[in-house]
């Protein structure tokens, strides 16, 4: 038991991989067993993640569940993992969504079942590893290694243009992360270590970075994360990848992979390069708002349900970035909360669309209409999830969006006003879509005899709706765990803000002289 406690994160990281290894040795024909092994190992991972979440102390600052083993000698790269209030949330989210992804694929994946679940579990290892790694190279390793299973998930089990979408996805991500690697190596050159906490200390102690170098480094990291988020002009890979991916792939993509971008911004960009972050904040906030409005407007006119949800992700992640670059407690906590919400709600929307696709093999809104009559249970669930996604009070989306808008308002009132327009637009595209698909008379005869949710689908949706309600009504356990981590990020920013202003005023004083 004590061994388990001191190795909890490693267990979390490698348990899915062990499940994948078991699957690798199972016979190709024993598909049912493979599904159960996948479900079991992902549920077990979730149980451990929940344990870590409960055991995570909200009163301690710094990293918890830290593990440290030397790995490479020269240059020193260590297996250093740990979690704070930010990463524990995302690990929980990952571990929560993976069993759901397994369950959604239960019947819809009939083709090469073994490989599918193998890649899905390998992907989970990569994702948890990204959130837990505290060594920059270890982080990079998980970040890049995770692309391969995702690539296969999209390219083998996706829809018509799957290969194109998968290659685009992998090239976009790698292009960003290649520059990040250069940035990481440059930091190593300055500090002599890849260890993230040590680098932070080094950067604190001495003014190692010139303002110009800091900006370049910020950009090297920022572009990698902005592509992943995706922030407005870097988003073009997202609709392709989301639409072409199988349902489970979309759930993981939207639910977890996008969060890696915002996680990276919060974890690395802000603390490592506080001054550059502040210098670029206006530009990034504007891009985020463009993303919110653009994503919402484009989502409104999509004829395809999955594309609609995909573009809504662009808008939602715009909110998250806006919250992060507001640089205050409300904004950042809202952003973290919204990361989790978006994972749950948008993941759920993709699951719902996938269920419809399983029944009708189309996702065109025009093919549907009046579905509430043949599918009452399904429609109810869809309504709740849609309302959560558009931020109805009492549901989870409201808490996050509200906090972000408050944060943005404190940073700049105009941002908040524009972002609020985005909230309205979200209501427009989701409710309008709901009206066209579910309300009124059944317009297409094919839809008359569609079966409603079976027990498996009901389980998935009920769990999600329970989480949506719980997080909307009682956000405290989540927010309290973030407080310390957010405070320490803000502290770094605050300290450097003083430096910025003081150097500026020094310069002005000099000029005056």
């Amino acid at each position: 038991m004590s061994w388990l406690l001191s190795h909890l994160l490693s267990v979390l990281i490698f348990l899915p991989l062990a499940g994948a290894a078991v699957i690798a040795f199972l016979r190709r024909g024993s598909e049912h067993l493979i599904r159960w092994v996948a479900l079991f190992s992902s549920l077990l991972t979730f149980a451990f993640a929940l344990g870590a979440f409960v055991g995570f102390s909200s009163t301690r600052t710094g990293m918890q569940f830290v593990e440290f083993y030397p790995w490479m000698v020269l240059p020193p790269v260590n297996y250093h993992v740990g979690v704070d209030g930010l990463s524990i949330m995302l690990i929980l989210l990952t571990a929560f969504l993976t069993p759901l992804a397994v369950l959604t694929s239960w019947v819809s994946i009939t083709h090469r079942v073994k490989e599918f679940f193998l890649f899905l579990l390998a992907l989970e290892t990569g994702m948890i590893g990204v959130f837990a790694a505290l060594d920059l190279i270890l982080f990079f390793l998980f970040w890049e290694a995770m692309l391969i299973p995702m690539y296969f998930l999209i390219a083998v089990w996706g829809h018509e243009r799957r290969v194109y979408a998968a290659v685009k996805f992998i090239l976009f991500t790698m292009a960003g992360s290649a520059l990040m690697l250069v940035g990481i190596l440059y930091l190593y050159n300055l500090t002599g270590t890849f260890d993230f906490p040590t680098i932070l200390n080094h950067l604190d102690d001495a003014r190692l970075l010139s303002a110009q170098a800091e900006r370049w480094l910020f950009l090297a990291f920022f572009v990698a994360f902005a592509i992943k988020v995706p922030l407005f002009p870097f988003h073009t890979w997202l609709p392709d990848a989301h639409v072409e991916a199988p349902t489970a792939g979309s759930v993981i993509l939207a639910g977890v992979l996008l969060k890696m971008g915002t996680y990276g911004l919060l974890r690395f960009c802000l603390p490592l390069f506080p001054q550059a972050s502040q210098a670029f904040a206006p530009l990034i906030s504007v891009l985020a708002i463009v993303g919110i409005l653009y994503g919402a407007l484009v989502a409104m006119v999509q004829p395809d349900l999955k594309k609609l949800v995909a573009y809504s992700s662009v808008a939602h992640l715009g909110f998250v970035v806006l919250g992060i670059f507001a640089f205050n407690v409300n904004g950042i906590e809202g952003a973290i909360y919204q990361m989790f919400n978006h994972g749950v709600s948008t993941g759920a929307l993709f699951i719902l669309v996938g269920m419809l696709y399983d029944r009708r093999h189309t996702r065109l809104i025009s093919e549907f209409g009046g579905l509430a009559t043949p599918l009452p249970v399904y429609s109810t669930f869809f309504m709740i999830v849609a309302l959560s996604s558009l931020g109805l009070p009492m549901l989870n989306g409201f808490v996050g969006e509200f906090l972000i808008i408050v944060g943005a308002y404190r940073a700049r009132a105009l941002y908040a006003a524009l972002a609020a327009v985005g909230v309205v637009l979200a209501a427009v595209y989701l409710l309008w879509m709901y009206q066209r698909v579910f309300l009124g008379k059944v317009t297409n005869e094919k839809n008359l005899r569609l079966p409603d949710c079976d027990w498996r689908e009901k389980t998935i949706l009920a769990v999600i709706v329970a989480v949506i309600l719980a997080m909307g009504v009682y956000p405290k356990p989540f927010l309290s765990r973030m407080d310390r981590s957010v405070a320490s990020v803000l502290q770094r920013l605050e300290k450097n803000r003083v430096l910025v202003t003081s150097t500026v005023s020094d310069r002005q004083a000099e000029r005056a002289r």
Partner: protein
Amino acid sequence: MITVQTADLIRLLPELVLTGFAILVMLFEPFLPTGRRRLLGWFALVGVFGAGVAAVWTSLAPGLAFGGAVAADRFSLFFIYLFLLVAALTLLGSMDYLNRDNIQHGEFYALVLLATVGMCFMAASTELILIFLGLEISSLSTYILAGFKRHDPLSNEASLKYFLLGSFATAFFLYGIAFVYGLMGTTNLLVLSERLSQSSHWSGLARVALVMMFVGLAFKLSTVPFQVWTPDVYQGAPAPVTAFLSTGPKAAAFAILLRVFLGGLASAGPLSFWVIWVSAALTMCLGNLAALWQSNVKRMLAYSSIAHAGYVLVGVAAGGPEGTSSVLYYLAAYSLMNVGAFVLIAYLAGTGERWMQIDDYTGLGYERPGIAACLAVFLLSLAGIPTTAGFLAKFYLFRAAIHSHLIGLTVLAVLNSVVSVYYYLRPVVAMYMREGKTEASNAIVPWAVRAVLAVTVVGIFYLGLYPNLLAGLASLAASPLP
């Protein structure tokens, strides 16, 4: 008159063993019936292992031999072991190939051994003339190996092209040596570096000599603009020979580059630095861009090997202990993945190498999961995906480059490696994402080849996850160079 001492011979023991076995292979051949000539391959393999054991003995008595013409130091031993590994994998990978394509002759094995001897001399010599001899021994052997499929016009073309351009290039190298001798009165690198360090001035002629020697090597390294022969020769040569060509002689040429340009002629500093910088940049870009358009796997890998030479040059440009050791690590990792890939496609291609197009791999991932997985590992490692050797090799290389403040070149290199992902994924797409069955899936993969695949795949993951041992060896090996 140089008197030969036992210590001299011990320091040359690996080369001697290899030469002896090469001669024995040729002697034995007439006594073996045609059907049993494959045994010679095993015999040659024993020779390679013998040389490995001999190298252990050499390593116990390091030092200079033959009046300072040969250095048995850690640097040369690292390369000798690398060459022996490449030679062993090539031998294992070619025995069944020769049977299949009906070109089972003993010379093949003898030539592989002799080429290895030449490569060992290239890495171990500290005397320009001897380096040149090593270059010639290995070149002449590989010219013949490239044309080993006598009845195949492509193979003939490869051999002829390689021979004509190659002899032209070695002439350049020799001419450079002649200039050096004329100017400095010596061809010994150690003496040379001493004399050069005393005179701070580099005359115009010395610069000409330096550039000429670089041109001669650049041909072997197939760096732009001396890469034109590479795709044709790599495509025409029997695939196991290509495996050998693209790794062994290339690594040997890098050994010379390190010894001569970072060692003996180090005082040329800025000139050789910029020559290497420019040729690294051009080589990476051209190799990768050209590889994007290939539909023939062999040609694609040929261009990819050009690109990899470009990456390694980044490490050479970085210089210093970090740069040198990263180059050594890269060459070892690259040898594993490239030999594995070429040997594998040699067998997938069937008799006469008929199935070499990317489309021929359609559906292979499901027809032959094990084989396809191996190929995917090689390709992903070449692309530099983490957990494989290719990633850490690039990581060390780029770290050294950043350490030497080569930020522009590093950015270019990482962007190039992103581009390369596209073409490395194309066979993967064919194997896993397209339905169908092609003749390539009927390929017979003999167990000697399976051994090659096992060694290379395990090696790739070992170097990708537990780099400490080799990285330590590489940095020890870099220590004899300044």
